[in-house]
């Protein structure tokens, strides 16, 4: 992460969009009275989404005024968290994880792709479509190497990438498509690649093998109607783990 400075060219003013304003109200309500300043991170985030992926300085003042918070305090937060972009970004911001697991699994190749197709980190590609940054672990190490793509659709994870799939991903994005997030190899989320070799017998987990409980331990003595709670079969996790919902 390079030293983060505010962009030289800044809009004079900032206002939340109608949708953004709605979300702001939602967040402000979430915190106990008098602790509204806790909303500074969500508000910066909403401002970033409202403003094409970066937080202008004017937004910090707006947020400071809204939360009765000194501007410098807002600036501290905005500069501390690297998820806030202080300069304009491309339509799609590619965040390549460069932390050890991803690095060992080839994030260097992904970075090279970014460098050759987009330019140096932080710069915006000529067509305005892309910019990229190297970030620290995004918590998807099992599917290393991976990138997070932030755009108007949200912040989506593309995993198990290599040079070819990375190029393909950029192509898709460039052509205006919305590629499906998730692994780029033959696997479901973080399950093993190929056929499952464990837990293949459904009766192991669908509850059919469970013995009926005659008495629930520790249940109040008098209750007669007590019955074993129904266990829901574990559902497969949605592939879009971190979708921007």
């Amino acid at each position: 992460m390079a030293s983060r400075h505010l962009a030289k060219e800044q809009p004079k003013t900032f206002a939340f969009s109608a949708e953004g304003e709605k979300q702001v109200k939602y967040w402000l309500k979430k915190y106990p009275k008098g602790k509204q300043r806790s909303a500074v991170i969500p508000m910066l985030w909403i401002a970033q989404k409202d403003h094409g992926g970066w937080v202008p300085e004017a937004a910090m003042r707006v947020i400071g005024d809204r939360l009765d918070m000194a501007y410098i305090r807002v600036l501290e937060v905005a500069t501390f968290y690297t998820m806030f972009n202080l300069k304009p970004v491309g339509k799609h911001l590619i965040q390549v994880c460069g932390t050890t697991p991803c690095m060992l699994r080839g994030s260097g190749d992904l970075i090279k792709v970014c460098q050759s197709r987009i330019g140096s980190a932080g710069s915006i590609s000529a067509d305005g479509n892309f910019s990229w940054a190297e970030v620290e672990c995004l918590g998807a190490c099992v599917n290393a190497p991976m990138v997070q793509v932030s755009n108007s659709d949200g912040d989506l994870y593309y995993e198990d990438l290599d040079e070819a799939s990375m190029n393909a991903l950029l192509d898709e994005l460039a052509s205006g498509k919305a590629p499906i997030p998730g692994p780029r190899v033959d696997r479901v989320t973080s399950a093993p690649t190929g056929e499952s070799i464990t837990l293949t017998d459904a009766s192991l987990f669908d509850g059919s093998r469970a013995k009926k409980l005659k008495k629930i331990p520790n249940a109040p003595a008098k209750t007669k109607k007590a019955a074993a709670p129904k266990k829901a079969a574990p559902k497969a996790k949605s592939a879009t783990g971190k979708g921007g919902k």
Partner: protein
Amino acid sequence: MTDLRKVNIDGKEYEMPGRYTLMQACEEAGAEIPRFCYHERLSVAGNCRMCLVEWVGAPKPMASCAMSLNDLRPNRDGSPANIRTNSDTVRKAREGVMEFLLINHPLDCPICDQGGECDLQDQAIGYGRSETRYDEDKRAVEEKNMGPLVKTVMTRCIQCTRCVRFITEVAGVEELGLVNRGEHAEITTYLQANLTSELSGNVIDLCPVGALTSRPYAFSARPWELRKTETIDVMDALGSAIRVDARGSEVMRILPRLNDEINEEWISDKTRFVWDGLKRQRLDKPFVRVNGKLRPASWDEALATVAEKLQGDPDKIGAIAGDLADMESVKALKDLMENLGVRSIDCRQDGAHIGEQGRSGYIFNSGIAAIEEADAILLIGTNPRVEAPVLNARIRKAWLEGDAQIALLGAKSDLTYPHTYFGNAPSDLESLSTKKHPFITAMRKAKNPMIIVGMDALSRADGAQILRAVGKLAAEWKLVREDWNGFNVLHSAAGRVGALDLGFVPLKGGMNTGKILKAAQSGELDTLFLLGADELPMDQIKDTFVVYLGSHGDAGAHRADVILPGAAYTEKNASFANTEGRWQQTRAATAPKGDAKEDWKIIRALSDHAGRTLPYDTVQDLRKTMSTPKDEVFDPAKLGAAGKIKAAVFAPSSRSFWFTNPIARASEVMAQCASAQVTQLEAAE
């Protein structure tokens, strides 16, 4: 409740209060703990790690500033926890921390103004390794603008955040912050705006390295070449403890000294940076006006001219003492005037209606330190942030740490703490106590209620009536009790209380400042003696012969017919009584400029010329004749005078914080501050 804990420090067992931090405990046990981020008057940050000590048995060394004895548990066998401050582990830990701190430090001590008085330097010698093992690139940080007073060399910063905590907690303006993180962390104001606090200079002292230094003092001296004189300040009426550092005949800088009863360890920016005013606009020889032009004269000539004038009709002579007049000169002048039969003397050049009804009626009775004990404070016609910034920090502390409730009736201003605003109409004082308001209830119920009334209120034409109304409030709310006196006057002139103590007010049948000026306007006054009085409408004085005794060529000297050059506060051993009525003495750091003399000596010499030789030859003899007035029984309800308070509201003071006295007005730095303030205000609009 005793909450004592046993602890073993460096092999000896102690019993100390559990709330003590390990650092306090170790210091009490006589061990020295190095530190950078910890400061006793600021919150604990615990981020520099220099204060590491060993807790025997714990896997890692502990930051002693951030851990209390209560956090320790005894050893397995029940014996008290062992803390080591001198073990190998500690030594290694300190060396490690030091090495890390120095990794990105530029080591530019030879060109650093902090050199010679730098914590980092000292502790590197005391606790560091002799060489570094780091040979990568160092980081560099751009300098940040913080205004005309604080110079920054941010590469030197070690991110202790003392400055941020001071500005936020003590100064009460959230303007400094630490942006970015980790290796990229930087201290800055928002978009490099100027610091607006009147206490901002204190961050220079707090900064343990040379990241924040004094801009006006930059590169002008090394600390070891300076002659240090402990004295007191006269920029406001607090009498803050200061140290004046001089080289040869020049004052190079002014620093605060510790005085818990007055200024703790802070001083205002005016106090700290006014010293360039001591070099400019100085009166260094006597002058006499001949044919409308001032020309240099000898002492004998000047004094003889004045002495001759003083032989005239004593009822047509007046004397006004200014805001910076010291007590010795005031006493000498009073004695001389009395001797001549002159009755029109006054020390209240702003016309304040105060000082003739007993001492408790014009001083800050509860004392400055007692502000911390107050639980309800009502400010009337004052803006302590401008009139006495250090005292304002105390009020803020009472709010921050003691939950004091504060209210203001006066010109609206940002006091740096939340307060109830009762508007700016002084006539509302009369009905204030009948108001149904939680603050009024709090005032009635308070254990230590306090009223602070300022000069904005008392120097109005209806000041006496306002004083009566305030006194009545004080009586009604029982501010004056056996063990507490919450009636407080906040002065803004350093010399005022001292002059009032010595009775420099019109003698029976004499005129006060207002009347003296009127007489001067109508030509009824022959001679006017100004003892450093510059805050007067000089253009109103028509044909009167004006004698000015003072140190600076300000308004008074410009109007004068004879100028007697006196000494500034850093050039004389003189007494001042602060707003609490505390008598203190300045010490001369340098000699008076040129032919100038200590003020009382000039008056003594003048008395000789006038044939009325004053009966003292030494300052000791003179001081023996000065005494504090005895206080009668104090009844605040009788203060002031009955009558109607005018409808005119308290207007925001037109006098800028930076220009309140002739020394400050001569200072270029003060002028820069004032114009920086104006530019910033305009930009904000």
